[in-house]
């Protein structure tokens, strides 16, 4: 059997590996006998770097983890640090954080579904639509903090810039237009017969396997498992906001796609509510001396890709003694060998695209 195997090295440079992922595929004809992901091409040892940076200095590094959802990484890290330092951000900052985190979730999901469509061979059209919509979010962030990709916006104790009436109007316009535009994605992809034929019942992820591999986020919810950190361990002001957790039924690629589409709708609802309930106050904090963390904390937040955990150990010094980032994509990609086995090459690409991984946080 081994003699008949065709070994294909997919990546680290390949159009559909979403970054510098290297998949070693052993094929029998076109059927994947074995799929071995090799990671580490983007390893920058951010956890080691953290040991020589103060907590505030480390925030920009979190931007470089999941670079498609920098706000959520900023937020996850700052919340963990705040819990360790026993600080609570002012109310206005908490609402602002919810707004930016959800907007960034939409931006991230837009890219997720459109690159997934790209993997299925829908040439660039969905991608350009998504980029056009994402651009609006990016412009909002640009107004808010002066950056388009790496925001460094959420700070320990607050945020770096306040909301202005202009930005609030931009967000309102975005919500109104995006509600309509999301229907276009339904026409273009969700109910497209070829799209369905390619993704329905492909790469079915069983719930127990997903839990055992530590798969989280939309990928876990697609299996029908009701777990959303925002609902189950509410942080910030999520417990005051009304939103639904979208669940899949089968756990196939289409479910993973559709959970993301639904989450975008819910996120729009959350942003709308948070914007309406935005309290007064000064969310911008000024820190003039480094924090000296002591003790340890493990804090999870719901990033667009799943449970993003920060484990910070401090020993009273300005630098954290140890910082571990539990990246959702790391666990999500580890399940790929199980899912890809026995599939066609085309379907393996479809499964990989539906998992929505970002190499930045896998390799750290």
């Amino acid at each position, binding site marked *: 059997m081994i003699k008949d195997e065709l070994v294909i090295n997919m990546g680290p440079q390949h*159009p559909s590996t979403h970054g510098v992922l290297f998949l070693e595929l052993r094929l029998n004809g076109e059927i994947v006998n074995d799929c071995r992901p090799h990671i580490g091409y983007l390893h920058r040892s951010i956890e080691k770097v953290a040991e020589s940076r103060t907590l505030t200095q480390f925030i920009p590094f979190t931007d470089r983890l999941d670079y498609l959802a920098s706000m959520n990484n900023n937020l996850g890290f700052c919340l963990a640090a705040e819990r360790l330092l026993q600080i609570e951000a002012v109310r206005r900052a908490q609402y602002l954080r919810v707004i930016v985190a959800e907007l960034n979730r939409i931006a991230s999901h837009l890219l997720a579904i459109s690159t997934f469509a790209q993997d299925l*061979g*829908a040439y660039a059209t969905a991608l*350009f639509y998504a980029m056009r919509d994402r651009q609006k979010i990016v412009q909002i962030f640009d107004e808010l903090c002066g950056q388009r990709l790496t925001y460094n916006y959420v700070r320990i104790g607050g945020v770096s810039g306040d909301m202005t009436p202009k930005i609030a109007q931009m967000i309102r316009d975005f919500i109104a237009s995006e509600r309509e535009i999301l229907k276009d994605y339904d026409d273009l992809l969700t109910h*497209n017969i*070829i799209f369905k034929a390619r993704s329905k019942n492909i790469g079915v992820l069983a719930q127990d396997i997903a839990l055992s591999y530590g798969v989280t986020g939309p990928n876990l919810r697609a299996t029908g498992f009701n777990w959303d950190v925002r609902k189950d361990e509410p942080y910030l002001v999520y417990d005051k906001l009304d939103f639904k957790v979208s669940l899949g039924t089968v756990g196939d690629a289409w479910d993973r796609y559709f959970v993301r589409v639904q989450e975008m709708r819910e996120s729009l609802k959350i942003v709308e509510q948070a914007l309406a309930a935005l309290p007064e106050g000064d969310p911008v904090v000024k820190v003039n001396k480094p924090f000296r963390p002591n003790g340890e904390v493990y804090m999870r937040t719901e990033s667009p890709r799943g449970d993003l955990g920060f484990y910070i150990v401090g020993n009273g010094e300005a630098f954290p003694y140890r910082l571990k980032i539990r990246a959702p994509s790391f666990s999500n990609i580890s399940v790929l060998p199980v899912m890809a086995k026995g599939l*066609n090459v*085309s379907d393996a690409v479809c499964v990989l695209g539906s998992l929505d991984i970002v190499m930045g946080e896998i390799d750290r």
Partner: protein
Amino acid sequence: MNFPVQELLKLAAKGGFVLGFVAVSAMFLIWLERKVSAWIQNRKGPMMTGPQGAFQSVADTVKLLLKENIVPSGADFFIWWLAPFFVAIPAVMAFVCMPFGPHHIVYDLNVGILYICSITSVSVLGIFMAGWGSNNKYSLLGGMRSAAQIISYEVPLLLSVLVVVMEAGTVSMQGIVHAQEPGWFILKPNVMVAFLIYLISATAEVNRVPFDIPEAESELVAGYHTEYSGMKFAMFFVAEYTNFFIISATTATLFFGGWLGPWAPSPVWFLLKAYGIVFFLMWVRWTLPRLRMDQMMTFAWKVLTPLALVNVLVTGWFLVRKG
């Protein structure tokens, strides 16, 4: 000896015209595709080279001509070198029977449509040679997929052409056009079915979305032409777009009356119809995702082929009854 100098000169002029047309049409199609896709995707496409980027393809051609021709190590050189010719030359040769107008045809073979179908099928050999000779696994997979795909779709394609031939009573391209003088074939219900089968199969023949499986960018990088660069790549590219034009032009001839049309000169009508179909196929390409290999094969053998066979039988029955 009576050497037909005049005849030969005439043929050479016609050949020159065909070559020129193929090159210009391929460049125009590439530009058009970029513009249509840009239009579909809310962007502008090429804008910098000439008005509306009209000379973009010319610039690209110059670039490709000047590029280094890289031979992959371990390639089967002879096969690798020959493959682009096997793809490009049949595409040009198919123009011999393409009726641009009542007198605008290189040579009206009496087996016209049969000739076009068979000469374009030769390109699968070139594609498989490219896949085999490149010493690249992606190319090999692409070549294998292509061979399976093109040969499978040949069957429904020819069966749907057969319906048109039965209606026209001739296989000559001009004959088919003339047979449509009372009315386009597309208006007959049985030929309508044949038209759908033909269009789908022809799309698969030229590896376009949703049947671009041999080139599947997200899976096989670029499939069989992954390892080609410079002019060799350009030959694949030109052949691809020429084949694309051929299927559109053949569709226009077989189903939409070819060059028939009032008021304007007949080549204008021919090109108008052909480019209408070109535009439709581009629209499809930039909208739909790709099918999977087995889904596509199932579709060819379990849906299209039986449907085409039944269509042929039904047409035959009607023709016999009509007498």
